[in-house]
């Protein structure tokens, strides 16, 4: 009996006492993050932002080797399965971009952060909102520069299942309205971004100004140069084409943004190395936080990239495949001026058509703009402290002329008889080529140095590279300021260019009178392979003239330059080097940019879904 009482007492005790631990039964699920948790946790929100930053769009940028090989600065010398990049025509959809998934994700975030965030510090909340709006403005800028005016969507579009979706069909905004939207958004958020002042991988005030500087310059030049075409590209509704009268306003906005950046003491042109060529290379390779305004960072072991694996000089690779994919063109190399200010055409033959002999292959490139050696590896140059083995072949003197002989085996020796009849050997075709119609060795006679990391293991797929990608840097801001000031007729425009050229290695005040051509060439050499040239030529409305599809077009065809060692025993020229231009066999079709490529076509499925969208011109 006693036993029963004790049992009942124990059970009663269990029931009455245990209920106090009610919350013990309420566990937060371990596999679901609720809205309340996400939008109130700065760590989770930073992680979400990282995803959006990672999705920022590019076209020929962010170490996109293939894209960089599709214009006139370089050709594809890598695996043959992608030789179509040397044999294609810009299609109607070339450069098409319609990423409303990302826009929708950002809009969703903006709405949720307003609705759920209650525990965040007000400043921090404002910072997250500002960053999201910066990313959205960045995406809209990419949309407008490729597609023209696009629908501006700033909230989630949710279908009500009532059978009528017309209220979700948003028509395209005018082209200038999208540029205005980008400007106004950045204007609204730039002060809130100042909390990120020390960051170079999250947007801060200067990043917003840099995007303004670039976007307004694009809008201004489209307004100006579209109107100057014999048949301006436009649609009746203004979805494409900006009135010429708006140009000055846009140039002014761009210049003001650039000036605000230039007066910021935290940023300056990188100038740490007295060897100017090396300085230009280090500027991007060393993660300089004064030159670079906004970057996409990479980290070995976490998130590396394979640009070095793709493009390192052939014999320097630490991997068993690839290398040498992106090989710069002769027209690009020749766009670098000489230090005395003369045009960059290389001195290959003298006035009477004879080859000019050089003691050392690199002598041909002496006295060139030092940025050339910081951007391109040419014959006789050094990489990682070692001279590259670049030589296309030998030039044997026979019957009163030079016979060019090349070997299919890289690094092989050429045998010849000297005056005494003894057999001698010289290097035939170098270990780094160039070799025509070959794979994974330069076909143009040049390699790219810019962005190719010299860190140990950077070219091995197991390690890969971690140098970062510059979205915006001071070099561009100087060029933006120069162009805007020049277009506005301001006298100090030339100073911006001269400051930049002084950093590059030119003497002070190397340019007396600024012209459009100087600005354009300066952008080509300074900003090469940084995802600018395609869009620059588009906004100046000269892409169809530069890439005219003609076999005789200087920039439409990618040419190369091959170096040969002279074999002429007993003659003073024996052992010297001469150069000959080449049209690489693998480069099959001249670049042809048609009027239809100024604005990409909109996908037919998108048009089917939204009948209010008008097509782009020529599509």
């Amino acid at each position, binding site marked *: 009996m006693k036993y029963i009482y004790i049992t009942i007492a124990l059970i009663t005790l269990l029931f009455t006492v245990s209920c106090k631990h009610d919350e013990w039964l309420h566990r937060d699920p371990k596999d679901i993050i609720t809205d309340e948790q996400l939008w109130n946790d700065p760590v989770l929100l930073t992680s979400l932002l990282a995803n959006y930053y990672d999705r920022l769009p590019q076209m020929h940028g962010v170490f996109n080797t293939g894209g960089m090989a599709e214009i006139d600065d370089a050709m594809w010398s890598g695996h043959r399965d992608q030789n179509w990049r040397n044999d294609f025509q810009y299609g109607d959809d070339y450069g098409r971009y319609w990423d409303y998934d990302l826009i929708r994700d950002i809009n969703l975030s903006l709405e949720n952060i307003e609705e759920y965030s209650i525990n965040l510090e007000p400043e921090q909340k404002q910072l997250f909102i500002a960053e999201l709006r910066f990313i959205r403005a960045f995406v809209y800028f990419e949309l407008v520069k490729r597609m023209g005016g696009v629908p501006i969507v700033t909230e989630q579009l949710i279908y009500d299942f009532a059978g009528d979706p017309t209220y979700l069909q948003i028509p395209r905004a005018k082209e200038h309205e999208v540029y205005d939207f980008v400007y106004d958004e950045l204007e609204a958020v730039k002060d809130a971004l100042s909390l990120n002042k020390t960051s170079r991988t999250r947007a801060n005030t200067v990043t917003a100004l840099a995007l303004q500087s670039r976007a307004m310059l694009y809008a201004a030049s489209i307004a100006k140069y579209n109107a100057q075409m*014999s*048949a301006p590209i436009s649609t009746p509704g203004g979805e494409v084409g900006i009135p010429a009268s708006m140009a000055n306003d846009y140039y002014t906005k761009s210049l003001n943004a650039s000036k605000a950046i230039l007066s910021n003491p935290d940023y300056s042109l990188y100038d740490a190395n007295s060897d100017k060529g090396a300085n230009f290379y280090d500027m991007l390779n060393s993660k300089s936080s004064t030159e670079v305004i906004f970057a996409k960072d990479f980290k070995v072991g976490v998130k590396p990239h394979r640009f070095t694996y793709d493009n390192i000089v052939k014999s320097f690779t630490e991997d068993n495949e690839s290398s040498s994919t992106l090989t710069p063109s002769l027209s690009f190399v020749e766009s670098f001026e000489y230090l005395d200010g003369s045009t960059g055409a290389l001195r290959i033959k003298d006035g009477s058509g004879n080859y000019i002999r050089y003691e050392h292959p690199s002598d041909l490139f002496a006295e060139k703009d030092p940025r050339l050696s910081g951007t391109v590896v040419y014959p006789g140059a050094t990489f990682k402290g070692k001279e590259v083995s670049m030589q296309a072949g030998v030039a044997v003197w026979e019957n009163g002329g030079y016979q060019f002989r090349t070997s299919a085996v890289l690094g092989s020796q050429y045998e010849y008889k000297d005056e005494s009849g003894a057999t001698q050997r010289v290097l035939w075709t170098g270990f780094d080529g160039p070799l025509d119609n070959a794979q994974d060795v330069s076909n143009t006679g040049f390699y790219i140095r810019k962005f190719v990391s010299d860190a140990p293991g950077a070219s091995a797929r197991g390690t890969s590279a971690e140098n970062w990608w510059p979205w915006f840097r001071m070099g561009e801001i100087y060029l933006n300021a120069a162009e805007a000031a020049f277009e506005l007729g301001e006298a100090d425009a030339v100073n911006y260019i001269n400051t930049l050229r002084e950093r590059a290695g030119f003497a002070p005040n190397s340019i007396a009178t600024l012209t459009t051509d100087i600005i354009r060439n300066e952008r080509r050499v300074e900003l090469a392979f940084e995802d600018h040239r395609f869009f620059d030529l588009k906004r100046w409305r000269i892409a169809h003239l530069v890439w*005219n*599809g*003609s076999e005789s077009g200087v920039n439409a065809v990618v040419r190369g330059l091959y170096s040969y060692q002279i074999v002429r025993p007993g003659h003073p020229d024996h052992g010297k080097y001469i150069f000959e231009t080449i049209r690489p066999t693998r480069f099959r079709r001249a670049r042809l940019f048609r*009027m*239809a490529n100024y604005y990409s076509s909109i996908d037919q499925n998108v048009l089917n879904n939204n009948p209010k969208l008008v097509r782009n*011109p*020529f*599509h």
Partner: protein
Amino acid sequence: MKIKKFIFITFIAMTCTFTGCEYDNFTEPTSTLHGRIVYGGEPVGVRTNGPQLELWDEGQELSAQFPIHIAHDGTFSAVVYDGEYKLVRKANSPWLPALTDTVVVQVNGHTEIDIPVQPYFTVSNNNIQQNEGIVTVTFTLNKIVETANLDNVNLYFGKNILIDDIRHDHKSSFAGADVTIDGTNTVTAHIPEHLSGLGYIFVRIGVKASASSELYYTQVQKIDL
């Protein structure tokens, strides 16, 4: 018994494999649509792989178009199903775009069609003479579209029959200001050295209107040297 069942199942499976396809395969289209781009009954020459027409197949749930490529002499052909199609003359061609003024095409077996266009300029009465390495061309340049502006007139030489503004072995350009519009013109050009040793070359005239990056071309002519 077990083996008999196995054979039976195999037999059924094979029957399904070999006869089933009839239900989910379409037969390929067999009707051919042939046509020419014409102005005033004369075919209009274009750049190979340049201007396009668009053929729209309506009546499906969603619109779908496919491009029709035009050969250098202004002809085109496509293999399609029988039915009604809409043909659109797109922009960036040497003629006025007619995006809303579609041509309805009834395809039934082998169908021939002429597509009329309004070129900005045309060339007529062209006569090409060669003498001592100098080619003399007389032609009449007609302005068809009132608002059109002339950029230039070009004379192309080529070793092959496919010649145009992009593919040619020699090009002589004459600025619009030097050409009489709606009148007879005579232009001359030297045959360059690398072509003069050949037995014959192909010659063609191209007219560039400022409204389009594509040129109007005459039919290619072969001249003996």
